[in-house]
């Protein structure tokens, strides 16, 4: 377990330059980059690390590049395994496509490595700490935080970075003159028909899938990615229609049906009995956008999944999260003033992400039309060399500028 480096009482007495909420790739990368600018950074997460997360655990080449750009010290390099093949499978058809440049790593290991690197660089770390509310004041922010056994406490920071992922439920209030008022509703815009995420890890002995190969199984109600982690466990992550879960009766039953339907390598990778025994986690609706800044003053910034997410099919979320942490750090460094930062950040962010999100949406839409998808699989099988060039998006898009 990665122990806290600062106690709640002490954190409450400090004036932080930046409070980062959430220690996934977005938050940890942002904290690491900002602390290197010489600012005082506090990173909090409601979980204790290492912690699991519903994720396909595949780093796209772009994500691998983002990780390299973080220049992590050798002791903090995550134990990633290179990914050299992707099986794309849909209802009785499957194709094995060679890939390179991507890798696989468990979220327990990846996120812990990043947090450890952040701590070494001077970030103050407080796990098992949930932020419930942020009040936006004229000259800074006040966050209300809770730890299990302690009374609620307040933290003061110049900027707050919300990197709380899809489950972000933090209330934002603005304090104008006198009374604080609650910002209207949750500003998150969820796309209609959005899928939800399901995930589980299965014990090391399960299935025949070798290390370094990813199986993408596409079914009628969604798709699942299956990959062997560095410690031998099997990671299973799926995006499915929410209604399909209730129709099947349980996440395990739905994934079992999807895998059976697809057959082949997918079925060989995850036997039914292992699925029945697995503890499935679930996420809120996946596809959403939420304003990049919150409150009136622009001192509250969202990055990573908390700001926007499309779908996991292209395996880019962690790359996006790392890149949004980078963009934030770079914009901080380049800005002459608070106001300057506030005008720059949304522009730079949009420039980096708009095209990627749009392409991911197109791919996601294609996957929803199984006949189209099945013929793509067929084509890939007939001409794998062409497919390898034609579908680089299988694990991630191009470079994140």
């Amino acid at each position, binding site marked *: 377990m990665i122990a806290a480096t600062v106690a709640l009482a002490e954190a409450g007495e400090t004036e932080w330059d930046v409070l980062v909420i959430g220690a996934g790739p977005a938050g940890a990368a942002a904290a690491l980059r900002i602390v290197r600018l010489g600012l005082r950074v506090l990173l909090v997460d*409601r979980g204790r690390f290492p912690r699991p997360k519903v994720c396909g655990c595949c780093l796209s080449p772009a994500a691998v590049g983002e990780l390299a750009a973080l220049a992590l010290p050798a002791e903090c390099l995550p134990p990633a395994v290179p990914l050299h093949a992707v099986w794309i499978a849909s209802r009785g058809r499957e194709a094995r496509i060679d890939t390179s440049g991507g890798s696989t790593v468990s979220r327990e290991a990846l996120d812990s490595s990043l947090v450890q690197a952040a701590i070494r660089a001077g970030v103050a770390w407080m796990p*098992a700490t*949930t932020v*419930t509310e942020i009040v936006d004041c004229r000259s800074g922010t006040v966050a209300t935080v*809770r730890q*299990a*056994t302690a009374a*609620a406490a307040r933290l003061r920071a110049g900027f707050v970075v919300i990197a709380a992922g899809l*489950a972000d*439920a933090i209330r934002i209030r603005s304090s104008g003159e006198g009374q604080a008022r609650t910002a209207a509703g949750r500003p998150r815009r969820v796309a209609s028909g959005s899928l*939800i995420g*399901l995930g*589980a890890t299965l014990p090391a002995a399960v299935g025949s899938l070798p290390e370094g190969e990813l199986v993408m199984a596409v079914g009628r109600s969604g798709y699942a990615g299956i990959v062997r982690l560095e410690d031998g466990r099997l990671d299973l992550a799926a995006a499915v229609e*929410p*209604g399909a*879960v*209730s129709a099947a*009766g*349980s*996440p*395990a039953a739905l994934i079992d049906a999807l895998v059976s339907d697809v057959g082949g390598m997918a079925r060989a990778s995850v036997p039914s009995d292992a699925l029945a*025994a697995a*503890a*499935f*986690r*679930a*996420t*809120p609706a996946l596809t959403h956008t939420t304003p990049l800044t919150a409150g009136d003053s622009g001192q509250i910034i969202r990055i990573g999944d908390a700001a926007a997410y499309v779908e996991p099919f292209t395996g880019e979320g962690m790359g996006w999260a790392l890149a949004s942490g980078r963009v934030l750090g770079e914009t901080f460094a380049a800005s002459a003033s608070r106001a300057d930062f506030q005008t720059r950040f949304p522009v730079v962010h949009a420039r980096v992400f708009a095209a990627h999100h749009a392409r991911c949406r197109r791919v996601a839409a294609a996957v929803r039309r199984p006949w189209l998808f099945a013929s793509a699989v067929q084509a890939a099988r007939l001409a794998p060399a062409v497919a390898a060039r034609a579908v680089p998006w299988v694990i991630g898009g191009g470079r994140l500028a």
Partner: protein
Amino acid sequence: MSFTILGLGTASPERSIAQTDAATLAAAFNNAAPGRERTLAAIYRQTRIQSRGSVLLEEPAREPFAQSFYSPAADAHATGPTTAARMERYRQAAGALGCSAAGRALEAADVAPAAVTHLVTCSCTGFANPGLDLEAVSGLGLPATVQRTHVGFMGCHGAFNALRVADAFATADPRAVVLVICVELCSLHFQYGPRADHIVANSIFADGAAAAVGVGAGHARGAESDHWRIIGQASRILPDSGEQMAWQIGDHGFEMSLSAQVPTAIAEHIAPLVESGLAVHGLVPADVRSWAVHPGGPRVLASVAEALTLDDGALDASHHVLAWHGNMSSATILFILERLIATGADTPCVAMAFGPGLTAELAVLT
């Protein structure tokens, strides 16, 4: 599934004992080695229980409490009454307590006893036959044709299993009106001696009964608004939990064994269970408006709150029932639901309880 709860009722024994007095009493039964009474008192205090009901308490003469069932330990090997003697008390007291909870539930539901078609009784603290079910028939005036089922010895989550059976009846027969009665007389199983898990069990368990009356979606009253409905249940045997909690029949009462790992194991496994259980209904934890968590002990509540990152106050109803009634095993969750409904709590509500094995049961109510 859809089981509409038309009414809930609860009943506590006539007398209860303050937790501080219970600690004093426990010292007389070898629970504390000489000179260690302070430690015992501290364990009792940490439960955050104020008082607990017991059918064994008698009209006090001088002290604030009196009981004659357990005699002070004569020596280090004292064990207290035999299981047969304990079961005899169960036979005498369980029916009346169960009937009084059931009577209240029928009244709250506005259902005549004669209209009940199915009876599901639930208890893990005693056995007798003829037992609870027949006493309920005669005590409440249920029809002699009522279809009886007993859910026995399952532990603190027994109410979930009983409600699952009730739902199955209600789904199979749209005319079914099901009465569920949980009765637990945990105070009959007080354990002598200094074994740590026995001391903890002695310090938290209590007596109580609770009942629910419900119908399925096909019943004329199934669509009535203003009622809470169980729309789903989920069950899980926690992996690698071995024998972290066990409930065994001994020669001197039923014996609880409890590992200190229980709260940690629950914390580790509860989030997937809740997320999967909710996903089936298109819900996520953030949608949940109220929580009913079986208060195995105060540490269980704290670990659930931490694992699910619940707001302060989210488990108030569970804490309240623990404080004023103790852990009444299977009856407890219905006390909590009754309190949530009475205090105007919103749905969706997630209810959960844990039992020997470790096992966890979950219900989603709207």
